[in-house]
């Protein structure tokens, strides 16, 4: 190893960050490393990743705001995503899931030797977005897209609709559109409670629907329904196949 590993520490509890720093200093001879940044939550961590090149992020799982797993799923979209080692105190469930998905983790209290081993093992191991999705216990609160080497967070609550277009999915908020590198099917699976499918290529946020309107098209075109979207005055066509399910969902 020529240059020292560049590390990011993410934990909401100050003593836990201090402890990691101490341990990393202890194993510096064995595994050269430097802590380039610390963060107390997911957002701070993403901001730190914009400013610093990081090889490995040490991430606590249970954090307020954005938990460690969600953070990792966003980080996985970065072109130069750091490897991630999770830290957990006693989450039985998480540990089992991690074992099954071959995701690196360390149990707290972290021991110096285990930390050293994990760092060596983790080098250049990109986070696996699919595996992270499997171990996540809750739907994400944000979706993310990578733009010019940084992560843009899109709060799920702000999204009016998601539309598949060729290779990408577009997330529309009141202000703008974001390109997401995820499939609409997966998004529907994760966020199905908050979104309604109105078309093969389109999911609409339940709360964004202000009404539906029947449109009688030109000749030779059968009449169809359109969903009115709150705030932006757009209308989206409902496919004939989705209409019965949508009607039932809107009545409920």
């Amino acid at each position, binding site marked *: 190893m020529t240059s020292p590993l560049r590390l990011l520490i993410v934990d909401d509890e100050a*003593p836990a960050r*201090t*402890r990691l720093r101490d341990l990393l200093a202890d194993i510096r001879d064995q595994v050269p490393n430097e802590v380039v940044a610390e963060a107390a939550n997911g957002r701070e961590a993403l901001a730190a990743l914009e400013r610093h090149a990081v090889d490995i992020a040490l991430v606590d799982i249970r954090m307020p705001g954005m938990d460690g797993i969600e953070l990792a799923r966003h980080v996985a979209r970065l072109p130069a995503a750091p490897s991630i080692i999770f830290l957990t105190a006693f989450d039985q469930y998480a540990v089992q899931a991690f074992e099954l998905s071959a995701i690196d983790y360390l149990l707290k209290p972290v021991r110096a030797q285990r930390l050293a081993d994990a760092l060596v093992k983790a080098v250049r191991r990109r986070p696996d977005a699919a595996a992270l999705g499997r171990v996540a216990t809750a739907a994400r609160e944000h979706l993310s897209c990578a733009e010019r080497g940084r992560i843009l967070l899109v709060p799920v609550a702000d999204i009016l609709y998601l539309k598949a277009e060729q290779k990408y999915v577009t997330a529309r908020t009141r202000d703008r559109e974001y390109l997401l590198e995820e499939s609409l099917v997966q998004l529907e699976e994760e966020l199905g409670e908050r979104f309604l499918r109105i078309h093969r290529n389109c999911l609409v946020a339940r709360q964004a629907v202000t009404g539906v309107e029947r449109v009688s098209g030109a000749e030779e075109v059968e009449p169809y329904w359109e969903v009115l979207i709150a705030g932006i005055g757009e209308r989206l066509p409902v496919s004939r196949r989705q209409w019965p399910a949508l009607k039932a969902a809107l009545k409920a």
Partner: protein
Amino acid sequence: MDADSIREMPDSPFAGPDFAAPGIWLRVLLAVNLIAFVAVVASNRDTGLLADEFLGVAAMLEPTALLALSALALAGRHVRQRSTWLQLVAVTVAAAASAWLVAAMTAPLRGGSPIISGWRPALVSAAMAATLFHWLHLRTRAQAPAVTEARLQALTARIRPHFLFNTLNAVLGVIRSEPRRAEAALEEMADLFRALMKENRTLHPLSEEIALARQYLNLERLRLGDRLQVRWDVESCPPDALVPPLLLQPLIENAVYHGIEPASEPAEIRVRFSREGDRIVFELENPLADAASHSHGNQMALANIRERLALFFDLEAGLDAAAADGCYRVRIQLPYRVREGR
């Protein structure tokens, strides 16, 4: 055994049911009415008259039961500390005398002789009283100190102190940079361990319970810092009120876990103790970051505390918990008792 031990349990091997306890009154009255109802149904010929017949019988039985219970409650220890046989005699005599008295007083209404008309109700009441006494006796025995204490021990042992583990991790974090703070934390932790390992089978003063909770919160501050805010309102409550041990700490631990840890901003837990007449009311409130997550672990803690309250106070204590307006509230009320001999 101390007077503040489990539900003022029997202080001698003979001690019988406490006829001053609301739980006993409730059970006796329910049983009496149930027996009356069954008897009326059995003897009834015309279903339309069922309600009238029941009221007729109940009107005689209830004053009888109340009268007998009052007499026994007044007699108090003089009865409770006799042998089981003498208690049975006292209960039977009290019931028979009460029945005879009620019958004699209502005889003019029914046009009978005050003296003679009483023998039948007296006999029936005596038989019912003997049966009920036997039932209460068995019940008391089933809840004998040994059984109750074993149950209490088991319940207390089940309080799994996650915070001890969290604290160890936090102490490891500061041990090099702030050795004195680490030292103080370990000392407090030792105190808490002692409290947790104690045989927690007797009530103890509220002041001790509050001190324990404050120590616990000091430890949590080590890792949570300013995120953890607590507002205490305990001035108006007598500190000598007796409460079950480990009542407060597990509830506050829950509040920290569900109210403080998931919150990005500093959040506040409110603890309030007050005295309302002869009752102590405890209220705990914490903000709720995510209502859905407030789940299983908390229910277990609440069930645990509910059962311990029942073991200590029978029907005289109650616990309610509910989430509303982004807040989670737990309310416990229990009778105000102090250690005897003060």
